[in-house]
Structure formats: structure tokens, C-alpha cells
């Protein structure tokens, strides 16, 4: 369906410098495939998507859509875009139109279908994304998740052959991610061909038929979710897919800002949607922190969350220490009991720089 070969994209800045975002991208996409594109920031995931429908035309290589070279001079780009839909991170709904008009507008103007038919189709699509009751509402009065669902309906109204999702949930409040992902899941079930740039690893694992791991401007690894997530070939892929989200605090001196630490831990837990960890982490800090600080060595505290295994932990690293500080920590038995209650497991391990005590939350 889509064949991409040696695709490259270089941005030339006015000051003469240039930045190569896509180096050499090759792939073939079959109808019905659901491909999630994952990878670190700035590795060209969104650029690849935007190059595909020529919003950011590539600077080299070729793209064949159903056997036609869309990069050829004089190729009717707007016709191609009618077949290749796109859903944006920032929704980009037309603010001056109602929800219904947003969905009806392009079919009326481009597919030239009658108002009646367009209205019928649009209402059907709105029912599909669960927003039929918002048909006469303006986008300003919708939540982010609702806006993105309207954007998906608007895209579907053009009856595209393939849909490109450019980080569809990145601009959403965590509570609204689910409603958008479930709409995409439904489309996947119906056999829609889709390319999805996403940071939602669990979603990518569940919904995709294929994963592109992008790194340094190329498709670094290409395979089924099981292959890429469970048995990655390259070390870079491994590091990324098992990547653990973390927030690090260097605790030094007496004037360390505990209030700021508290805020950051709370934000971290909101961001990764693990609200139950927040209180545990705070209590753990309260109980254990004085003892670790009493050791009088540079202390590094980390809170970590693995998106794949959905596990979270908190660890305390004391620099230049070879033995566990716990026996001399002077924790009361009551405190020790309470800490045990908070954690699933306590790991004590020496590291290259010092000694680490890791508390795994249940």
C-alpha cells in the first residue's frame, strides 16, 4: 500500500546550519496494519508522519502510495491527502464551526456530497466516537478528549485509506487518554490501516500489529510488539522499551527544598497515573530520610516507574559507602514495620559509586 525508500529530511536554517531529522527511512506498509512508531524524543517520529502526507515534504527518497510516486512533480497532493487522513496532537478543530460542521465540512466541500447525506454520515461517525449529543456544540466547550474524538470523526468523514496519528494523546490530561485510545482500538479492530506515533507503551503493545522503533533518524527496529518489547535485537531498543521513568533529587546540605521535592513527586505520580504511589513515597521519605541523611554522605533519591511492567520504586543512594547503612540507621521497630508495610520488597545493593537501598512498592 505504502512503500517508503531512502526517505530523508534535512532542515536548512537561515543561518546556514542544517539539521538532518530523517536519514534513511525504508519500510513497506500493508493494508490493515496498525503500526505504532515509538522512540526517544527528537528522532524523527512525527517528521516521518508529516513527511508521509507532505505537510513537511521530504528532501530525498521516494514514497509510493498504491503504486504512484507521490513525490513526483505535478502529483495532486490534495487528492493524496484525501486518502491519507491525519489526527494531530493539538486537535486543530475548526473553532468557528460546530462539532457537526467540523465533521461535515470537508465531505461537503471536497467529496461534494449533499448536505443531507453529509449530515447523516457525520452523525453516524459522532455516534461512533460517542459524541452525537455534542453535535451543535462549539469546540471551545469540549474537553481535550472530546476534541480529539471529534478530530478522529472529522478525519474518518473523508473515508481515508490510512490514518496517521501524531501523538494523539500527548496534549491530554491523563484522565482523558483512555477515551481517545479506546476509539483508536475500535478502529484497529475494524481493520483500519493506521500509523500511530505514541508514548503510550502499553497501548502500543496491545493494539499494534507492528512496531517501528525509531532512533537517530532511521527505523532502528521493526517487528511485532512481542519481538520489539520482549526480545529487542538492538541494545538501544532494549534501553528504550524497558526505559524506566524517573525523577531524581540530589539531597545536599541543610537547606534542601523538601517542599519542592514533595511537589515533584506528586506531579510525577500524576503524570504516570500512579496516584496510590504518591502517598507511599511521601511517607517513606518521612520515615527513612532522616536516617540516611545522618550518615553524612552525598545522598541521591530517585522515584522510578516502568511503563511496561507498571512497577514503581524509590531508592536512596549514598555515595562512597560500601556497606548497608540500614543496621546503624537507628530506625525504631515501629518505623521498620511501617516501611515493610509500604513495600513489596527492599533491595540492598552496592553500586559503582556507593551503596543503594531500593524500596519496591507493591
Amino acid at each position, binding site marked *: 500500500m505504502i512503500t517508503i525508500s531512502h526517505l530523508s529530511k534535512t532542515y536548512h536554517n537561515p543561518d546556514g546550519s542544517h539539521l538532518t531529522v530523517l536519514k534513511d527511512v525504508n519500510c513497506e506498509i500493508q493494508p490493515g496494519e496498525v503500526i505504532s512508531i515509538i522512540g526517544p524524543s527528537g528522532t524523527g517520529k512525527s517528521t516521518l508522519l508529516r513527511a508521509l*502526507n507532505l*505537510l513537511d515534504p521530504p528532501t530525498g527518497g521516494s514514497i509510493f502510495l498504491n503504486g504512484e510516486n507521490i513525490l513526483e512533480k505535478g502529483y495532486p497532493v*490534495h*487528492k493524496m*491527502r*484525501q486518502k491519507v*487522513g*491525519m489526527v*494531530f496532537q*493539538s*486537535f*486543530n*478543530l*475548526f*473553532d*468557528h*464551526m*460546530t462539532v457537526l*460542521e467540523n465533521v*461535515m*465540512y*470537508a465531505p*461537503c*466541500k*471536497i467529496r461534494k456530497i449533499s*448536505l443531507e447525506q453529509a449530515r447523516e454520515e457525520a452523525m453516524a461517525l459522532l455516534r461512533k466516537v460517542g459524541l452525537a449529543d455534542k453535535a*451543535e456544540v462549539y469546540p471551545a466547550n469540549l474537553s481535550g478528549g472530546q476534541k480529539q474524538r471529534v*478530530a478522529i470523526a*472529522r*478525519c474518518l468523514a*473523508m473515508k481515508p485509506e490510512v490514518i496517521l496519528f501524531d501523538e494523539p494523546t500527548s496534549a491530554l490530561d491523563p484522565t482523558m487518554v483512555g477515551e481517545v485510545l479506546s476509539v483508536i482500538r475500535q478502529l484497529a479492530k475494524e481493520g483500519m490501516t493506521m500509523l500511530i506515533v505514541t508514548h503510550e507503551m502499553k497501548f502500543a503493545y496491545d493494539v499494534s500489529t507492528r512496531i517501528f522503533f525509531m532512533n537517530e533518524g532511521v527505523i532502528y527496529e521493526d517487528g511485532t510488539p512481542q519481538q520489539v518489547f520482549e526480545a529487542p535485537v538492538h541494545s538501544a531498543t532494549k534501553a528504550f522499551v524497558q526505559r524506566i521513568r524517573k525523577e531524581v533529587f540530589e539531597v545536599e546540605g541543610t537547606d534542601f527544598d523538601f517542599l519542592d521535592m514533595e511537589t515533584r513527586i506528586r506531579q510525577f505520580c500524576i503524570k504516570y497515573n500512579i496516584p496510590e504511589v504518591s502517598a507511599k513515597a511521601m511517607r517513606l521519605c518521612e520515615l527513612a530520610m532522616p536516617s540516611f541523611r545522618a550518615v553524612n554522605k552525598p545522598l541521591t533519591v530517585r522515584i522510578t516507574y516502568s511503563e511496561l511492567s507498571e512497577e514503581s520504586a524509590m531508592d536512596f543512594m549514598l555515595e562512597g559507602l560500601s556497606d548497608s547503612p540500614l543496621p546503624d540507621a537507628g530506625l525504631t521497630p515501629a518505623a521498620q514495620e511501617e516501611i515493610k508495610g509500604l513495600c513489596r520488597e527492599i533491595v540492598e545493593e552496592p553500586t559503582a559509586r556507593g551503596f543503594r537501598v531500593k524500596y519496591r512498592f507493591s
Partner: protein
Amino acid sequence: MQFGRKTLSLETQAIIMKYKLKYLLGLLPALALLSCSGQAGKTLEIQNEADLSGLRVVTLAGSSYDVELSKREDITLLLYNNSSDCLQALITDKADVMANDEIVFNSAIRNENGVKIAFLGDHSFPTAFMFRKDEAELADTCTAVQRRMIEDGSMQRLKDYWLSDQYAETTTFTHITYETEGAPIRVAAAASTAPIAFRSGDDWYGIEIDLLRELGKELRRPLDIKYYDAASSILALKSGLADVACGCFFVTPEREEEFLFAEPYHDYHPAYFVVDKDVRKQKEGVIAWLKHSIRKNLLTEKRWKYITDGLLETLKISILSILLGSLLGILLYAMTRSRRSWIRSVASAYNAFLSGIPELVLLLILFYVVFAKSGLPSDIVAVIAFAMFFASGACDIYKTSLDAIPGGQTEAGLALGFTRSQTFFNIVFPQALRRGLPLYKGQCISTLKGTSIVGYIAIQDLTRAGDLIRSRTFDAILPLLLVTVFYFLLVWLIGLLLKLASPKKKVL
């Protein structure tokens, strides 16, 4: 799809409009009462120029009175551009004494406005037509014609008619006609003041106009008379836009250095006017006042035609400026978005230049300097000047309203399969229009009101129409009020036109 809000807003508009009109009409009786109220106190007793010491004296800017009186440090001199303003200043107690030509304020006008001549000045001023230095031949012919008229007695007959109160009793005037063949003599009239040179109906009359017609007859050339004010008529003569200036130009050494005078045809006596407190104006009702005022200011000599002609002129200049300016604005906006930095610099320099120059100054520069030799009609020059300003403002409006639309809107349009131009006209432009239209309306209104300065380049617009009527009737209130009402209606009309152009709520 939501009609409710729109209907409501239209209704609200109508109500607001109604109230605005009511207030405006309410001003009428208030002003009438104001005009009828007499001043208490005694008539000022002065007998000679020495008595002027310590008083506030009002006179015409740039006149010989101005030149003479400004030498005295013991008086406060107030200067106005036309005789009717001078008279209003005297009547409304902004000045104690008015210095002006005895002949301009004849007994009828003096009686009506409750002023009298306190004394006549010691000197008389020789008065003549003024020509450019390189027009010696025309000036000599003028002198020759005048001499011949003195010999055959026709000069005396003219003076008998115009320089007495005889003409004041009539409102229909006649003048000589003759066969013409040459290019017109372009006359810059420094004032519209009876009986020197004034407009009545569609034509010009007065002693100086009759003399110029004799000159035209001699040369078989028609007259092309334009009404400037005192300062502008000198500019017009200097820049070659006129061949002769008339309107009671006294011969002064300073003027002789710059210009050429024909032989003086008359010596005018300066007169000093004061308010005659003994003549109590009889109180008249508002209705009676309105009737009298309408007859005097509108019906007599078909003076309403000045208003309607001026209205059309104002409308014409405004609409053409707005249309041309909107297009120029698009060009300017395109320039500000150019990839080439020098094109952007040109556009921003243009905007900076125009925002730093008053409209009147640009208008005068264009008319008297840039296009002086081109023979371009003054209304075209006015359109160019106002379009230049409008373009600069419009460019800013396009910028603010288009730049406010996020780039994502364009991308979404493109991604759906619209072409670039379809995306602009279907998606970006309607949204920008909603933001820009109120600003655009404001710009249109300020341009419309701004055109009230075109009188400076001899265009008879709505404002100048009021001036023309005032110069004949010496009545300030009704002409100004009418001009106000018509400007108000024009602004409302522009608002209405733009409302029709505004996008409908429904997009499909």
C-alpha cells in the same frame, strides 16, 4: 445554526442607534437656547486703536490686520481662518473686539448678530489681485482692464453695487457671460466672503469675481475658481496650482517680495466691531428659531445643495480610499511576509513613516509638492493620501487577524485534502474575518472622519459645505449640527455595509 444570538444583537444595535439619534436631536433645542441667550453688561466703549490696549482682539489669520495688530504687545490677538469663525468668537465672548472689513459685515448681518462698528481704523489697505512672478503678462493685462473700467465708469458701477448694502437685499445674482476659447484662468479664492468673492448656488459672485470675469472676457479665457483658505491659496499660487489669488489680498511689502500684484482696485477700511449690548435680541421659540435657521441656511440660494454635494464628495473620497487602501494593504501585508529582508524593510519603513506623519501634512505635501505639476485633480490626490494611510492601518489589521489563527488550522485543512487556496478561503479567512472586522470597521470610520480635512486642498466635502454656508449666513449652529448629523449617518451607513459583509454564523 444559532440564530438567537444574532437577532438579539441586531435588536440591541437598533435600540442603541435609536437612543443615539435621540440624544443627537436633543442637542438641537439645547444649542438653540444657547444661541438665544444674550450677554449681560454694557456695550464696550472704544473710539480708536489706542483704546484696544488690554483687550482681546479677534481677526483673520494671515490678514493685514493680523500683520498690523501682532506688532502691538498690549493686546491679546486671536486668529481664526474665516470671518464666520471670527464673528462667532466675538458673539460668544471669546473676544472683546473683532477687526475685519467694514464691507464684509453689512448692516443686515450686524443687526442679526447684535454687533456694531465701534470705529473705523486709521489706515486703509490697498487691495489687489495677486499673481505669480512669472505671470507678469497676466498681471499687466489685469491692470489694463481695471484702468479701462475706471475710465468708462464701469468700475464705479461695480463698487456702487457691491460695496454698498445694495447686494444684500437680493439672493439671486447675475454675471457677465462671454465666448471662451483658451485654457481657463485658475483662480484660488482665499475665502468665500460676500461681497468680495463668494459662492451662491453653483457659481461664484462678488466684486473681485466680476473683475476677474472682465479679465477673462478680455483674454477670452474661462475662469476655474477653487475655494482654498488664506494660507492654502498662497500655497496653491506658489506651487502653480492656481494662476491668480483673490479674496481681499492687501498689498504688503512681504507679499510683494514673493508675488506680483496688479494695480490695487480699492482701498478697504478696517473696522473694529463690538457686541452691541443695547440691541437685545428678542427671544424666539425653538420652533421659530429652527424655521428661520432652516430657511436661512438651507433654502435660500439652494444652500442645501452644498450639503448634499459635500456628502457625496465625502462618501466618494472615503469609499475609494477604503477600497484602494484595502488592496494596497494586501500588497503591504504580502511584503511584510516576504522572504527577502529588503522587501520587509521597505514595508516596515513605509508603515513607520506613515504612522509618524499627520494626515493633513501628507495631504498638503502630496497636493502642493508631489503632484503639484501633474495636473491630477485634487479629489484623486485626496484618495491617494487617505488610501496610503488606510493601507498602513489595513496591513496591521490583516497581520493581527491572520497571525492570530494558529498554523494548525491550515495544517488541518490541508490534511483533510483542501488545496492551499481552498484552505485559506474556507478555513483561515472566515476566522480571521471575525477577528479583523471590528478593527477594520474602526479604520473605515476614522478614515471617513479623517477626510474632513480635504477642504485644505480645495475639495468641497461635507465639512467644507458647512463652512460655505456659514460664510454666507454667519450662523454657526445649524450648519455644524447638520454636518454632525450627516457624519453620524455616514458612520452608521459604513457600519451597516460592513455588517452585511460580515460572515454568517452558519458555515454550511
